[in-house]
């Protein structure tokens, strides 16, 4: 063996293995799924999950409805990821406040942004900021214990309310308000919400959509559940379904089954005829209507002015709605707006698309600035990259796909200048505060919430203030 060979061998033996350092911003579904893939597929990787809240799981904790505990079982898989020796959780660390994007890029080989789509879209119509017009997302946050929403004013004293939008979140909200209260008591719904909902006088909920039955965004499971609700009757408007049964046979399977379920329900409604029953609540989806103005009396919502629409366009999936000139008024004393979300730029360096997502190519962030190559590469996954569409399954697929791209890049990582990782970030955050919650801290919060729930016969009673979360975590 010659000298140079020997030298390389010695160098190989003595050199420390490459440790790729990755930070993931946002510990929701996308963040955890990406961490799952990376921790399994990249040797020696060090993954740090940085989360704004002291608690993990994003919308799994604060979005998924309390009466759907099975959906939250995925938390068990995420917990295993967090317990992986190469994965760390750091809660109560906010990108854009405690640490900047540039700082992260200086101290990590790769930065994956997964901070979701927090902001709800507004309709931009007259009187939208009046009392009793609420974003469904805030309403969801309120019953799910999201700290910012715990003091939301919810007035359920009226008989009739409207939900604007026809997606799954709209159906979640309707179901929570139409379900027998005894069913809700068994869930981890927050106590403040339970109290107000148990006094609810709401008997009738309209679900208003711009387009027709063929364009609804909700999925069949959620609809079936609503149709089966005890003491609740769904009433469709026959005229909304004109021509639908002629088309239904040509639809792809998911859309076909969904439409058939609506038609079947309509048919049953026609056979039974209308029976007024004091004990019943009513769920009334209506189609081809766009809100154009909220009507106010005494500073409170009294109704919604709706424009009637017709569809134009050839195929049902790209048909648009245009006003047909007629208007209608719907009396209601509460309106929940549920027409979608958008992400917010938390750092000035990020380029956003007009859809409110970060511009990216298969998860690689399109970054025009000519930074030095020393900065870690930027990626995006989850709703921040795809837009706020789809269920956990789809977020999972996207997160795996982005993580795969990252794996390829990390394999050829030139680690000549090893990065400092969280030890450096900690110094930066500590200048602001030293209340970083690690996984152990979350476990304390978790145990505490389960104990509090037990006393009330619930699976969990969530802590609803950041302050109290921190107290429990650092106890």
């Amino acid at each position: 063996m010659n000298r140079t060979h020997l030298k390389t061998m010695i160098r190989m033996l003595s050199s420390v293995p490459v440790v790729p350092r990755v930070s993931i911003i946002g510990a929701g579904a996308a963040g955890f799924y990406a961490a799952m893939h990376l921790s399994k597929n990249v040797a020696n990787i060090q993954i740090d999950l940085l989360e704004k809240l002291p608690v993990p799981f994003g919308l799994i904790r604060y979005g998924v409805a309390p009466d759907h505990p099975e959906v939250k079982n995925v938390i068990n898989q995420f917990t295993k990821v967090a317990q992986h020796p190469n994965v760390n959780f750091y809660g109560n660390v906010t990108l854009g406040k405690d640490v900047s994007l540039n700082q992260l890029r200086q101290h990590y080989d790769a930065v994956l942004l997964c901070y979701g789509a927090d902001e709800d879209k507004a309709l931009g119509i007259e009187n939208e900021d009046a009392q009793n017009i609420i974003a469904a997302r805030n309403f969801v946050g309120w019953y799910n214990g999201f700290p910012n929403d715990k003091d939301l004013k919810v007035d359920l004293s009226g008989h009739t309310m409207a939900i604007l939008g026809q997606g799954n979140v709209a159906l979640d909200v309707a179901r929570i308000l139409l379900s027998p209260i005894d069913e809700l008591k068994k869930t981890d719904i927050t106590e403040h919400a339970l109290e107000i909902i148990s006094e609810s006088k709401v008997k009738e909920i309209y679900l208003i959509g711009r387009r027709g039955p063929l364009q609804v965004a909700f999925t069949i499971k959620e609809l079936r559940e609503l149709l089966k609700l005890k003491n609740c009757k769904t009433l469709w408007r026959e005229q909304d379904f004109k021509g639908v049964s002629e088309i239904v046979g040509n639809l792809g399977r998911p859309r076909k089954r969904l439409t058939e379920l609506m038609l079947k329900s309509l048919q049953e409604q026609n056979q039974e005829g209308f029976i007024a029953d004091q004990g019943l609540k009513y769920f009334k989806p209506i189609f081809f209507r766009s809100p154009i103005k909220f009507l106010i009396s005494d500073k409170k919502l009294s109704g919604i002015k709706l424009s009637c629409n017709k569809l134009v366009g050839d195929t049902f999936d790209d048909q648009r709605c245009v006003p047909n000139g007629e208007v209608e008024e719907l009396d209601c004393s509460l309106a929940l707006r549920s027409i979608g979300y958008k992400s917010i730029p938390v750092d000035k360096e990020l380029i956003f698309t007009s859809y409110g997502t970060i511009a990216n190519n298969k998860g690689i962030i399109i970054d025009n600035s000519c930074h030095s190559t020393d900065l870690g590469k930027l990626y995006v996954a989850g709703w921040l990259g795809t837009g706020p569409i789809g269920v956990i399954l789809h977020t999972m697929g996207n997160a795996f796909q982005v993580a795969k791209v990252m794996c390829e890049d990390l394999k050829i990582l030139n680690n000549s200048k090893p990065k400092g990782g969280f030890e450096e970030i900690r110094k930066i955050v500590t200048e602001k505060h030293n209340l970083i919650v690690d996984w152990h801290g979350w476990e304390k919060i978790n145990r505490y919430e389960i104990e509090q729930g037990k006393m009330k016969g619930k699976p969990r009673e969530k802590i609803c203030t950041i302050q109290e979360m921190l107290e429990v975590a650092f106890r």
Partner: protein
Amino acid sequence: MSLKSIFRTVSNSRSYLLRYKSLGASFSNYRSIVPLSTNIPNLKEEKVKLTFVLYDGKRIETEAKVGDTLLDVVVNNNLNIEGYGACEGTLTCSTCHVILKQEDFDRLPEEASDEERDMLDLAYGLTDTSRLGCQITMTKDLDGLEVQVPETINDARS
């Protein structure tokens, strides 16, 4: 019986119970409760062969206990199928989507329930012979079953 297998049986029946509890109320025609009764005399552990073929062609050949669902097999044998079974068999995630050969699909003793089809409708790469793995129970007849695990991404978008 070894300690390990006691543990396995216990943890198994727990998962069935969990499932039964959360679903029994909402789905009247829920099928997976069937193994609850067949599983108990089954401690002799009759085993059959089962193969998962991943989207990248990788084959995972494994043994399955008669009476277990495909999800049970993945969990109990610690098979590396990423993200599989997120909702733990409660029919709320469809991460357990598998595609069967037509003849296997046809010989499954149970057809998919409405609730299973509802969840399948969300899956990418849905086919006429798609099923959810948490709803397929292994029988002696199914010895040698081979199922495909499709990729969980939207091809149109990638």
